[in-house]
């Protein structure tokens, strides 16, 4: 038995050493990316980055929360260089947990508007999505719609479709209301929304759109991104659902439509910090932003790049320039408000 154990231990150590030796021989430049995004467009961009710079991109795909948990546990030994999430709130959370570090990059400074990045340059937004109201044009005229706040009017009783409060996009929307209007007004809003829901929250954003088309309600609150996905779906029924609704950008007279972003932060203990900066700069560059805009129905953050034709066809809109940091700061409050309003 002893013999077996000692052989096993030796074998494990041997393979571990061997692995390390291999690494040393190669001395390959690399960047380790922990990402919540898993789109084909991203993979193509990573490959392009590899080709242009010779820096190999290693990807770990998982939910942002799990990636952050992983980074926390790994601590100083974490191999992560870049953390990419699809929500600003999570980036703020990662910063507050001490998982990110500030970096200097002139390019990022001038390319990305100030409300779309961290004050200490811990993270930078890469793409934007607007959370809009979609409506059934047979039942609703755009004149009837104004703001998110107006949705709690009795007029919409049993007519609103929106997903559950566990969803981060809803949490961020409510966080923006808390930041803009205060907690009291936000609570009132959440309660009013629950009272006006056409059905108990379920399904994802696409399901809300389908339910509008199926006549279960008149309006739904969803991300623009998913309308794009529906319209370009391989499934003819989904295309029909996407075509069955019209998009309305709320709060145009006031603060603007709520937006959320996906973005990248530089890991605190990044072993390849320089490569990480290069990588994020590349993703914010005109070339990469064009790919994002085209492939994924997201709005580019680089102002030199125009959105895709489809997004243009929905018209331009005024966006809420509330600092995204506020979304993160108010996220937990938003969850508590949701629970108090009994928003499932």
């Amino acid at each position, binding site marked *: 038995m002893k013999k077996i154990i000692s052989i096993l231990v030796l074998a*494990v*150590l041997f393979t*571990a*050493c061997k*692995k*390390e030796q291999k*690494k040393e021989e190669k001395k390959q430049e690399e960047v*380790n990316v922990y990402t919540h995004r*898993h*789109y084909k467009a991203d993979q193509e961009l990573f490959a392009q980055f590899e080709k242009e710079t010779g820096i190999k991109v*290693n*990807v*770990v*795909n*998982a*939910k942002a*929360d*799990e990636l952050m*948990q*992983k980074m926390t*546990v*790994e*601590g100083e*030994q974490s*191999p992560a260089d870049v953390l990419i999430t699809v929500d600003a709130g999570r980036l703020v*959370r990662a910063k507050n947990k001490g998982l990110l570090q500030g970096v200097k990059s002139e390019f990022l400074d001038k390319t990305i508007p100030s409300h779309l990045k961290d004050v200490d340059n811990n993270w930078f937004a890469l793409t934007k999505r607007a959370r809009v109201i979609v409506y059934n044009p047979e039942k609703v005229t755009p004149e009837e719609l104004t703001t998110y706040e107006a949705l709690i009017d009795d007029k919409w009783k049993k007519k609103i479709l929106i997903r*559950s409060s*566990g969803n981060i996009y809803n*949490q961020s929307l409510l966080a923006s209301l808390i930041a803009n209007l205060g907690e009291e007004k936000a609570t009132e809003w959440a309660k009013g929304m629950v009272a006006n829901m056409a059905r*108990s*929250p*379920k*399904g*994802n*954003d*696409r*399901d809300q759109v*389908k*339910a509008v*088309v*199926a006549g279960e309600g008149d309006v739904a609150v969803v991300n623009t991104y*998913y309308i794009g*996905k529906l319209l370009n*779906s*391989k*499934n003819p*029924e*989904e295309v*029909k*659902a996407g075509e069955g609704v019209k998009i309305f950008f709320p709060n145009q007279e006031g603060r603007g439509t709520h937006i959320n972003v996906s973005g990248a932060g530089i890991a605190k203990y990044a072993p390849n910090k320089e490569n990480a900066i290069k990588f994020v700069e590349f993703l914010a560059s005109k070339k990469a932003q064009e790919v994002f805009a085209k492939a994924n129905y997201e709005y580019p953050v680089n102002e030199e790049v125009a959105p895709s034709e489809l997004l243009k066809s929905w018209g331009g809109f005024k966006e809420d320039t509330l600092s995204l940091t506020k979304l993160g700061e108010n*996220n*937990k409050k938003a*969850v*508590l408000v949701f*629970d*108090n309003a*009994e928003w*499932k």
Partner: protein
Amino acid sequence: MKNLFLHIKRDTTKWSIALLTIVLFITIPVFTIFINLFYGPGETWSHLVNKLLPNYVSNSFILIVGTSFLTLLFGISSAWIVSRYKIPLRKTLEWLLILPLAIPSYITAYAYAGIFDYGGVVEKLFNLKIDMMNHFGLIFVLSISLYPYVYVASRAFFLNQSSNIIEASKLLGASEKKTFFKLILPLARPAFIGGLILVLMEVLNDYGAAKYYGINTFTTGIFRAWFSLEEPDTAIYLSAILVLIIFVLITLEKQQRKRIGYFNATKNHKRVQRESVTLSIRIIFFVTVFIPVLLGFLLPLFQLLYWAYLTFTEVFTSEFLSISLQSLLIALSSAFVTVLFALSLLFFAKWNRLSIINMLTKFSVLGYAIPGAVIAVGVLIPTLAIDKWVVTIFREYFNFKIGFILNGTILALVYAYTVRYLAVAYNPIEASTLKLGKSLSEASKLLRKGNIETFFKIEFPLLKSAILSAFILVFVDVMKELPLTLILKPYHINTLAVKAYEYASDELIAEAALPSLFIIFTGVIPVLFLNRLIAKEN
């Protein structure tokens, strides 16, 4: 006190030590989580208890009652019919009945929403829209995808059941119905309760299906506390309570079972001969058996095939093939290791005379009750401690830089799977071992054969089909596993379940169909193999 020590000293053998080592090894992650019970929950605890838990707990309770009823109904009835009666296509149905297990339940949930929802087949054909996304829909989906646990366990029992008692019962004038309800069903209890416990653990663990259908369960609470309220302490505290509840349930069941005492007195038993029945009954039986196959496998399968057809060119790439291969290898090796551990636990416990350690064994099958994400953290914390320690030692003493030897490697992943799925392997083998009784091994010992020789010559051959069932169940489970894999998988490795999840989480449900189909496909082959084996034995 002195007596106790003498007792321990007297009864400690090499088996006790081996058993203790394995139990400790397997329970490290569980204990890492348990320790948190003493730290207490975080500050949002009262908010959770007041606002959310009553609703979460009642939802979980409804799900448990509903799925217990339906899975037992589907599982036992179909198992009894295929092992006792001659019905058309019996051999095919026998393995078809297991296949729903190959579809991840959240995929079945998506498929059913697709079938019944807006633009689905049912709406098109019958102009009928049924809302699947509620309690009933969820109970239905979970039952239809999990009943095979009960079916597999019950069928293994029925097939090995000696026909003597049935004949005796009939000779004494009991009707077929009475024989089943008064005799067979009570006797089969260890088997189907074992299956049912697996079902319930899966139900409590389910996150994907419940979330999509908008039903908040206890597990939703764990995720909400962890990720939305940012309190891992509270989340782990909740998981620990969940584990405690399940542990109590298992113990209660065991206690009750012990009181009854199951053993098989007849040694040279004849196998049950399948009976012929009248045509009308044959049709009823056929339909009864076919319904779970249709609902649990064929219907979702067709929906997935349709989706896969729509998205095939986009999803099917060379990368996809390599991911399939990786998944397969990981699942095979994990299943092998898990079964090995299950066998060691069972038999070391049998050979060990120190009852305290045997009681500890129960802790090692708890992993199945804990959400995969929590297990992953339970594995991550201790393995990282070891990794960091090893790295430091090599740096300090040998001036040599090495990488992590556990984390980010297959080792940690397979270890986590073993911890999580040990119960899946342990329960069916245990049920069959109980049926085996003690007399055979005792006879072998009287003939001065050692434990190990007895095992390989007598117990292993007799348990072969149970062991293979266990292997296949674990294999299929690992193929489907998601949250744990996401956290612990090495950089360059991907699995089909992860791929399917990536698509589904981006609301690309149709694209998720092809990887799901591959998971199903890889699950079907071993099931076919197992079936042939059981058939040959008979």
